[in-house]
């Protein structure tokens, strides 16, 4: 296996493990693989890091010329982005029911999640991304319903004006007296 690929696999899995551990420590449920079990996530993270280190350093001699400094930086950043994306995607796929993730008393009204990582304590990443889209959609739906009622009443309006008025005793007609 080329060193570039081995390095990316090693860093991606190690970063995934580190993310699981830190998410479990700070309750960032939107990063967990096992939303209901932070302890399991933490242990899985530690195991992932250990296995990836063991695999990388036992699969080949690493004390030979390999990647240069700039390559190491590039592949590390790439692997970290990959790890964060995998963690957010897997966590989102694993939590289909939004309310099951929300701790009591921290449920947010739709469309207004708390900004930043704090929001991942109460919802998965996909739910958070969908929330701002959901509010304009709801507004548009409400506007459409309003417009539909108004146009319906508008159609009914001229018809009612043509109807003969009922006599109510006294009239404003000056010639009637």
């Amino acid at each position: 296996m080329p060193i570039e690929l081995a390095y990316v696999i090693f860093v991606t899995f190690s970063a995934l493990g580190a993310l699981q551990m830190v998410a479990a420590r700070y309750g960032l449920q939107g990063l967990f693989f096992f939303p209901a079990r932070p302890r399991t996530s933490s242990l899985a993270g530690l195991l992932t890091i250990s296995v990836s280190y063991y695999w990388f350093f036992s699969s080949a001699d690493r004390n030979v010329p390999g990647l240069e400094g700039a390559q190491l930086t590039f592949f590390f950043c790439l692997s970290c982005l990959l790890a964060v994306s995998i963690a957010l995607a897997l966590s989102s796929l694993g939590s289909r029911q939004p309310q099951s993730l929300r701790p009591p008393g921290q449920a947010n009204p739709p469309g207004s999640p708390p900004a930043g990582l704090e929001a991942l304590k109460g919802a998965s990443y996909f739910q958070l991304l969908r929330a701002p889209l959901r509010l304009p959609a709801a507004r548009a739906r409400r506007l459409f319903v309003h417009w539909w009622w108004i146009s319906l009443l508008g159609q009914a309006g001229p018809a009612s004006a043509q109807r003969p008025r009922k006599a109510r005793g006294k009239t404003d007609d000056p010639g009637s007296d």
Partner: protein
Amino acid sequence: MIQEVIELDRALFEAVNGLVGRSPWLDGLMRLLVNEYFVPVSMSLVLLALWFSGANPHLRKANQRAVLYAILAQGLSAAIIAANNGLYFRPRPFATLPVNLLYYRPTDSSFPSNPAAMAFTFALVIWLFHRRAGAGLLLLALLFSFARVYCGVHLPSDILGGAAVGGIAALLATVILKGMVEPLFRIAIGLARSFYLA
């Protein structure tokens, strides 16, 4: 005076490198620590974890600023090393001394130690913001530096030079350039927050 320092440097190197072959487990540990992967990846993973850690948004933001300062200082450290390498070249110890070599033969300048500069830059910047994580990283930097001397790729003075470069880069980033980069960091963190990533 300079001759005495050079002699001391060589004597220290020989004392540390002379330990090779006495204990197989120590040789194994040093061979694990000396390469470009184990310590640099471990330190960078600490930075990644620090980005997501913090009991509340205020503490998390402080940690994220520390990570951004560490990245900036790392860039400065690399620039200092590159500038130095263009002006001065010192041969590796295995080119001039009898050495027990446990690593391949790098061809770049021995002074200042690039890996030591990288490790101390990270450790010192993080230590300024987060004492516990910084202490852990300093321990890793010291182990990494010791491994470089043990395996015969650096003299102790190279390590001192690298640590000095790390200190200068940390100072430049966190004190001298602070006013200039702080608004940029605030924008970067704000942007990441809008995508729920900070």
